[in-house]
């Protein structure tokens, strides 16, 4: 507004910018530098040369891209019809479908992978049952197919939630107008409904691609010979073949280049569909009839049951007797007793501390940045806005690695502390919460704040008493999902954790990788229950079906 010499918001801009420089740009720079150095610290492109000269390495990036594109397509193919049936027809028990979908996409992916191994793996229940009862040998769940199965089932609900939002914004009069001009049924579905939803389809595709590409747990557990990029980075960093930070850094740089390319391709594609919708008359849901209606119900319930089955099965397993990797007949709480001895209390305490403090920082920073970007647009604030989107294209493993390089040695020796975990989690989730806070603030008319000022309220008072309460709904809906994502975070945490800063997710993963399957089931069950409770609280509080991710 006016040119003032000194203003609190300028100070906030500078502080945020400094924090970004320290916690994002500096580690990124360190990563970049390491990638072009030899372990002895001399400049060299040998890391990149080595990567591109050996098929052992190059194949991983092809693997990652192949499986991620396949997962994205399958998720769209599964999720769009699901969303269509849900949004345009009165399905029975639609609330259940909705809640379970959110539960599916908010669970930690590697728990799904682990559970599917228990079901369809070499000695999985279903595998054994089919073999002994019917003599059928089912195809292996390991490798490409396994990753595709687990990730698709995990990510199609994400597509569903996105598409549901888009379908709700289609004005019924558009549907009626196209019917008037003789365009109905499947024709209308593709020419009107899908065409209008293209921006959302692209947004959902990007989201699925980024998450699937960065997913570390699923390919680690299920990939076996089929090595993907995050797994390669992790192995280079901590692998059996010996550590090579420089090579791992080079891999991280390549990963960022891939995701950045995908990100800009998506932006370019979205630019071709520039229109916005806001339905005055949302489409009225029709009653599904006859055999078609039955098939719709069958499709939705079967799909959601398959997607949710692993989580239920884990809870069931957690009560089974177990010794090492073998589940025995009979039920008991022995797995939970074992968990108590294995840092359960510390895991829960760390998870809570991490979750609460990261979330608090994320909310405060996101609200401030949204306000700076929307209400006080300036060159510096635009730089902050652009920088805040940077983590969007950085896979979790890359963030973990870059923080490790930056803060692994003096003067910032933070490795193994909860602080560095908080930093990683804040960086990971910040872009999402900023997006939802910015979107919320943009919808709030500036004149409401001006009204407060004209009534004698100071700018700070207006911000606290008017702006923040009005943003609260939008921020909360984003925050609780961030909370769940923080609690189930694996890919960056696995590089940064140690025994002192272990979390529930890490305990689960550690138990799985050590072959303590009963123990793993107990940890996973607790994690699942925490997720479910968080989401139930969220749905009860927000009373809305508009979930922002």
């Amino acid at each position, binding site marked *: 507004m006016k040119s003032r010499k000194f203003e609190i918001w300028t100070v906030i801009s500078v502080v945020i910018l400094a924090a970004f420089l320290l916690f994002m740009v500096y580690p990124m720079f360190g990563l970049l530098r390491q990638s072009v150095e030899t372990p002895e610290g001399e400049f060299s492109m040998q890391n990149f040369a080595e990567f591109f000269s050996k098929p052992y390495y190059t194949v991983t990036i092809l693997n990652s891209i192949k499986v991620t594109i396949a997962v994205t397509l399958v998720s769209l193919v599964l999720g769009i019809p699901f969303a269509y049936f849900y949004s345009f027809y009165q399905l029975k028990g639609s609330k259940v479908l909705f809640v379970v979908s959110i539960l599916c996409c908010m669970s930690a992916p590697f728990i799904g992978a682990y559970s599917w191994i228990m079901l369809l793996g070499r000695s999985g229940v279903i595998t054994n049952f089919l073999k002994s009862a019917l003599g059928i040998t089912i195809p292996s769940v390991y490798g490409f197919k396994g990753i595709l199965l687990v990730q698709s089932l995990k990510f199609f609900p994400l597509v569903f939630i996105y598409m549901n939002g888009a379908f709700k914004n289609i004005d019924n009069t558009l549907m009626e107008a196209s019917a008037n001009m003789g365009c109905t049924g499947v024709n209308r579905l593709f020419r009107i409904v899908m065409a209008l939803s293209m921006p959302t389809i692209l947004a959902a595709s990007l989201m699925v691609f980024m998450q699937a590409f960065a997913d570390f747990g699923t390919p680690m557990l299920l990939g076996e010979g089929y090595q993907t990029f995050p797994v390669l980075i992790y192995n280079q960093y901590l692998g059996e073949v010996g550590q090579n930070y420089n090579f791992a850094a080079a891999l991280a740089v390549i990963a960022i280049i891939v995701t950045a390319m995908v990100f800009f391709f998506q932006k370019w594609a979205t630019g071709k569909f520039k229109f916005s919708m806001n339905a005055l008359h949302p489409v009225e849901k029709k009653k599904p009839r006859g055999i078609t209606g039955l098939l719709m119900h069958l499709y939705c319930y079967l799909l959601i049951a398959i997607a949710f089955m692993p989580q239920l099965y884990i809870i069931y397993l957690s009560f089974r007797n177990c010794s090492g990797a073998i589940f025995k007949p009979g039920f008991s709480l022995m797995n939970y007793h074992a968990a108590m001895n294995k840092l359960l209390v510390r895991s829960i305490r760390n998870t809570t501390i991490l979750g609460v403090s990261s979330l608090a920082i994320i909310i405060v920073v996101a609200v401030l940045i949204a306000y700076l970007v929307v209400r006080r647009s300036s060159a510096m604030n635009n730089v902050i806005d652009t920088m805040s989107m940077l983590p969007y294209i950085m896979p979790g493993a890359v963030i973990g690695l870059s923080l490790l390089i930056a803060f692994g040695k003096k003067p910032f020796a933070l490795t193994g502390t909860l602080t560095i975990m908080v930093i990683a989690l804040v960086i990971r989730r910040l872009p999402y919460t900023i997006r939802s806070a910015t979107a919320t603030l943009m919808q709030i*008319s500036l004149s409401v704040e001006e009204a407060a000022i004209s009534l004698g309220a100071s700018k700070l008072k207006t911000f606290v008493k008017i702006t923040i309460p009005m943003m609260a709904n939008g921020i909360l809906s984003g925050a609780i999902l961030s909370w769940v994502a923080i609690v189930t975070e694996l890919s960056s945490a696995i590089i940064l954790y140690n025994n002192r800063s272990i979390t529930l997710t890490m305990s689960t993963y550690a138990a799985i990788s050590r072959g303590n399957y009963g123990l793993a089931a107990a940890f996973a069950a607790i994690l699942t229950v925490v997720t479910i409770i968080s989401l139930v609280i969220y749905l009860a509080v927000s009373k809305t079906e508009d979930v922002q991710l």
Partner: protein
Amino acid sequence: MRKHGRNRRNSGGESSKRKGNETVSVTISIKHALKKYGENVIIPDLSLDIREGEFFTLLGPSGCGKTTLLRMIAGFNSIEGGDFFFSGRRINDLDPARRNIGMVFQNYAIFPHMTVRKNVEFGLKNKKLPAAEIKSKTDEFMKLMQIDQYADRMPERLSGGQQQRVALARALCIEPDVLLFDEPLSNLDAKLRVEMRTVIKNIQHSVNITTVYVTHDQEEAMAVSDRIAVMNAGVIQQVGTPRAIYQRPANLFVSTFIGRSNVMKGHLAVEDGKVWLVTGSGHRAQIETVQEQYKKDQEVVISVRPEEFLPCADTTVDGIPAVVDDCVFLGLNTHYFVHLDSGEEVEIIQESSLDNVIRPGTQIKLQINTEKVNVFSADGSVNLLYGVKSDEAAE
């Protein structure tokens, strides 16, 4: 009605004089205001004096800079040049929160997370008044605006008209020096708009607070205003009472923007000291109101309001030959759409009579009421007649 301007906190500065027990409301004086967005000049050089207690309207097409000017007065837009005074006190650098203005916004800007009562008392709380006074004032103004029965409702459960009343109560109860309205009725339906403009006018008269009102609706402006400033492209075209502006518009823009005008080409002919107005089709009529300095032969633009034509079915009389194309019966009035033999199309309004409707296709003669018509220079920039009043700002 009682005066609500009484005992107002005197933030208008030393120049707010007191007459007996009543504060005289402030004057607003704008000198050489300049507004730019980057290199884009919105308001080049605008001066304006608004009198105390006056209901003053800024009227103009969208994009003419009227809302920009209002927001400069409110303090929400920066001022690139010139000076703004409230009763002689310069306010350019005064924080908007300290200008003691009551503002009503186009979208009402009701705080959606507060009840009606909380909305109304918000400004009083910022003044740190005692709780009892806040309560009594809030009650008083909610009652005045007839929203006291909704005091504990959330705004989303109010209709547009009720929200508008909340916005008004909220702006009024801080007893502001100046009331600002930014197109406050444009989100209401036609019937409510007429009702609310009466409410706004009556309240303004009873509280007697200097008011600046922005609208693009000329009928609304005429209905509520003491005086109107017609703006176009950041420049004030004319300032005056609704009657002065309607009857003697300063230029062609004002003439066509306020009310309906038929615009025809013509010329002035001076013969033996008498001035004749000659239409494009050659019809001559004597006109006596041309200013002395413009009494010479010249091309002009003639602006005739639809009610200033007199159609005659008798074609033998003197007048402009015309043919009726269409007639529309609207109850009180009947509108005729006719074309002249010069090809120009004009609209005529006549009070409906019981039987003598002129059928489409009929040849008629049009006479012009030369006392009422306006004659502009060929470029439309200046009215050539006596009686044009535009209140210039004092230097």
